[in-house]
């Protein structure tokens, strides 16, 4: 889903950064904020440093790339959730919850959604895995020194050790994401135990 991302990203830049000038065009953080690298994740580091201004700045830099990268995934997750919600709404326990005279909101969100989110979580884990690999275009557009770009360049430069390391990192991240998804499963679905 990376291709429309390019077009969409430039569009967002033109609107929010060039015309409205409320968000930055590119980069991860402004240059007035010096933050000690502890984890390397700027959002976390700025919070650890207690620097709220830098945290806000990092957040501002994150908005457009995050939207660009996340929007196609939103569409997929919406579809999955919709399908599974339709499925769940047919279940007996939803009828029973209705029969209990519960407020509609509670039936939908507490009873139905909690169960409907189970496939959403697993799809989200898989899709996040594919985001990992497909984000080099967004990295390029927003000038982020990202792994995707690094790997593509390394492939072209035949820098195989780096590619191997990156692939390992991808695999580990993928496994970790699925692990997180599994933990979320147990939260959503008590029948599943780790």
């Amino acid at each position: 889903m990376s291709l429309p991302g390019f077009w969409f990203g430039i569009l967002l830049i033109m609107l929010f950064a060039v015309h409205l000038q409320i968000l930055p065009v590119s980069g991860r953080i402004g240059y007035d904020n010096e933050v000690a690298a502890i984890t390397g994740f700027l959002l976390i580091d700025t919070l650890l440093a207690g620097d709220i201004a830098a945290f806000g700045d990092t957040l501002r830099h994150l908005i457009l790339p995050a939207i660009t990268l996340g929007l196609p995934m939103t569409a997929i997750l919406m579809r999955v959730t919709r399908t599974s919600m339709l499925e769940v709404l047919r279940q007996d326990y939803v009828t029973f919850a209705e029969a209990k005279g519960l407020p509609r909101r509670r039936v939908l969100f507490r009873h139905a959604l909690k169960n409907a989110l189970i496939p959403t979580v697993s799809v989200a884990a898989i899709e996040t895995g594919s985001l990992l690999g497909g984000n080099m275009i967004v990295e390029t557009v927003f000038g982020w020194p990202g792994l995707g770009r690094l790997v593509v360049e390394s492939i072209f430069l035949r820098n195989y050790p780096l590619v191997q390391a990156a692939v390992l990192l991808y695999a580990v991240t993928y496994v970790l994401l699925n692990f997180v998804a599994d933990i979320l499963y147990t939260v959503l679905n008590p029948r599943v135990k780790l």
Partner: protein
Amino acid sequence: MTVLLEVSSLRTEFATRAGLVRAVDGVSLRVSRGECLGVVGESGSGKSVTFASVMGLVRPPGKVTGGTIFFDGRDLRDIAPEEMRAIRGRDIAMTMQDALTALNPALTVGEQLGEVLVAHDETLPAGRAARRAAIRDKSVEMLGLVGIPAPETRLRQYPHEFSGGMRQRIMIAIALACRPQLLIADEPTTALDVTIQAQVLELITDIRARLGMAVVLITHDLGVVAEHCDRVMVMYAGQVVEEGPTDQVIGAPRHPYTRGLLASIPRPSLRGQPIRPIMGQVPDLVGLPAQCRFHSRCPLALPSCLVEVPMMAAGPGRRARCLRLEEVAA
């Protein structure tokens, strides 16, 4: 005894791909306070849909298209959805066939029990902590009432951690949490072992006596009806075919279908005799002509039966939908 629920000429239809299905076709019934009404019929005879209609829980593509449902003096078809919501769970409660599917697998038993109280119980105290404690106490009380040991710890558990009979009890506890005036028990025992069936039915009967509520017991088991119900109503293909006091209907059925049902039950008293199942199948409910629906399976059918048959009086407090009800009794 005053009338609690009075349904007349109820009609519920489903728009399916094959055509319009009249799942409930002109059903009238009456439940008095404290009374137990048994509703019998094969699968697809419209028993469950009838009471889903009463609860206002018919889902698209189904729709209640005619009739009135008076409950406690109010027409349930005529009130706002919010009012209906307030009645459900508080005044009319329902249990479903299979507690395994009716209980939400993702929520604890305590939460599923407590939420009914939150939704309906106006006697709960105002403060957050006090409210929680009150809900907890009531939940424990309810689980105790349906005979679940160690209710405090069990409240924190999930449905899958209970046995089938326990789950059924929990569902009943949830249904009874607000002391409803009417409990609709939709096949409360079909999913259970025989021994547990008996326990659960005992429980319902017992609580009915204690709380003084009316019960509608939907089942296909005439034996259960005979044991627990004051009156019985037999449904076939979306219509009521016979109703009356239990002992009379079972002792002397006035509709060939009821008779067939009785004949197909293996009974100890009739050991050695062959079981006689009703031959044929329930007719397709799409586009049924307005004539006796049991006609094609009826051993007593005559060509003259091919007309629309109304419910006819069949003795004191009894009615049946058969032109030859005298002959049935014979």
